[in-house]
């Protein structure tokens, strides 16, 4: 079977790759968006935190025999806690300054984290096996679906929409939305905004670590895995609109799919299509597709 002259299996598998990449874009840009919304800080360490999430899972497995499922919980907790410490000791000092300072600090931290893991583990990458339960694949008729990859998409979607639900439909989310708009008044109304900020940064970072664990069996666990991805994720955030929750989820998934399609129909363009879209969006809608000017 062919679609537009392309075998459906090829189209399907590239769309699946696109959907998987899009899932990572969505989880990572979601974390960046909520951090930027409340903290006004562009968290350049996000890619490094994603990488460290994968490394925690790998170290847990190889050194302590902690399996994938436990790591899926453990790693976000560990890296999220590290995020809490960073926020309390460093980021907190920068809120009153220009965005640039937060960007510089987190960029510096990203370099330190990456340098540390390069020094310890080299850059050749460490393999992480797909958990037993998710090995193998199923034939969908028009294509073959590896179960683990299907799981990644489902897990990412659940986490994204769970986060969206928490922000849009719960009391905690109302604090967060209000705090993003006017933190001073939210404090005057009796809400502990400093604690809310710490929680938000910890949660955003934990999302990155969660994505890292999901990624470990697909990509190799490599100190540079975050920096390769984060540039695209920043483009996703810009396209979706800084600070928009649903915007970053939908844009992440959508751009992953567009990338996949480009890989089928115009492979040479697949590495730049996201940036091409970013340029167009910035020209036409500078606040992003879902952002408010």
């Amino acid at each position, binding site marked *: 079977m062919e679609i537009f002259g392309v075998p459906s299996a090829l189209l399907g598998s590239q769309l699946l790759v696109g959907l998987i990449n899009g899932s990572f874009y969505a989880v990572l840009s979601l974390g960046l968006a909520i951090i930027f919304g409340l903290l006004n800080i562009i968290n350049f360490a996000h890619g490094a935190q994603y990488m460290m999430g994968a490394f925690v899972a790998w170290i847990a497995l190889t050194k302590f025999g902690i399996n994938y499922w436990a790591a899926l919980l453990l790693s976000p907790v560990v890296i999220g806690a590290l995020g809490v410490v960073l926020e309390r000791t460093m980021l907190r000092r920068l809120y009153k300054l220009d965005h640039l300072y937060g960007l510089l600090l987190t960029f510096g931290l990203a370099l330190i984290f990456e340098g540390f893991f390069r020094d310890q583990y080299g850059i050749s990458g460490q393999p992480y096996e797909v958990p037993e339960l998710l090995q193998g694949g199923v034939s969908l008729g028009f294509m073959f679906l590896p179960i683990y990859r299907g799981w990644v998409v489902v897990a990412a979607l659940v986490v994204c929409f769970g986060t969206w639900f928490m922000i849009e439909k719960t009391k905690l989310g*109302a604090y967060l939305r209000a705090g993003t708009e006017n933190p001073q008044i939210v404090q005057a109304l009796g809400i502990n905004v400093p604690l809310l900020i710490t929680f938000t940064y910890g949660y955003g970072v934990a999302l990155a670590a969660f994505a890292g664990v999901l990624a470990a069996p697909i990509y190799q666990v490599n100190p540079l895995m975050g920096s390769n991805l984060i540039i695209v994720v920043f483009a996703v955030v810009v396209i979706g609109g800084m600070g928009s929750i649903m915007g970053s989820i939908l844009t992440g998934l959508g751009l992953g799919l567009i990338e996949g399609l480009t890989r089928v129909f115009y492979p040479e363009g697949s590495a730049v299509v996201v940036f091409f879209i970013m340029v167009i969006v910035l020209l036409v809608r500078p606040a992003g597709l879902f952002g408010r000017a």
Partner: protein
Amino acid sequence: MTSAFQPRPEMLRIHDLHAFYGESHILHGIDLQVARGECVTLLGRNGSGRTTTLKSILGLVGRRSGSIMVNGKEVIAEPTHRMAGYGIGYVPEERAIFSTLTAEENLLLPPQVSSGGMSVDEIYAMFPNLLERRNSPGTKLSGGEQQMLAMARVLRTGARLLLLDEITEGLAPVIVKKLGEVITELKSRGFTIVMVEQNFRFAAPLADRHYVLEHGEIIATITADELPARMDWLHQTLGV
């Protein structure tokens, strides 16, 4: 000066309050006392330090020194988010209704700090418009409705000391009249109220006392009884 009010317990006492925004020294030693159940206004020209006085009570300025006692407790070192816990409800000049929250989410946002706050039903009875508009995004409400919402938001929490900043600003006379009725009702329920008000005709019949500010200092205290005799001076001072 306030001997007539001594029998009533003190809700708020500010002594020698100085406030700064960066290098600018805005308040130069404010002293004021408000008894429980009293309604006082802060009058003055623009830039005289009235709004800064309210913000200073909550710690929303750069730096403060002096003393702020609420219900007999020193609170000047407390972080802003603890102030609501002392029973302070703040209605800021810009109303600060959140656009990403519905009217009802705005209403329910502040945590309850003590029992005895108004129930949501009581609030909707007092402000029927808010019931109708409860599912609209907060900033889609009219200016008057947003002001009602900003007031209602702090009445639910159990706050007993209300700091109201220019609540009538930019509103139609019919809404201003409604707000006057609300303040009268709140006074009868025993709320303590500190109002910054430009609309002197609105404030005069409601307030027990008026503090007049100039250049970040209190230059006069006028009781409601003394007001008729001081009207000319007041008009001159306020430039109205």
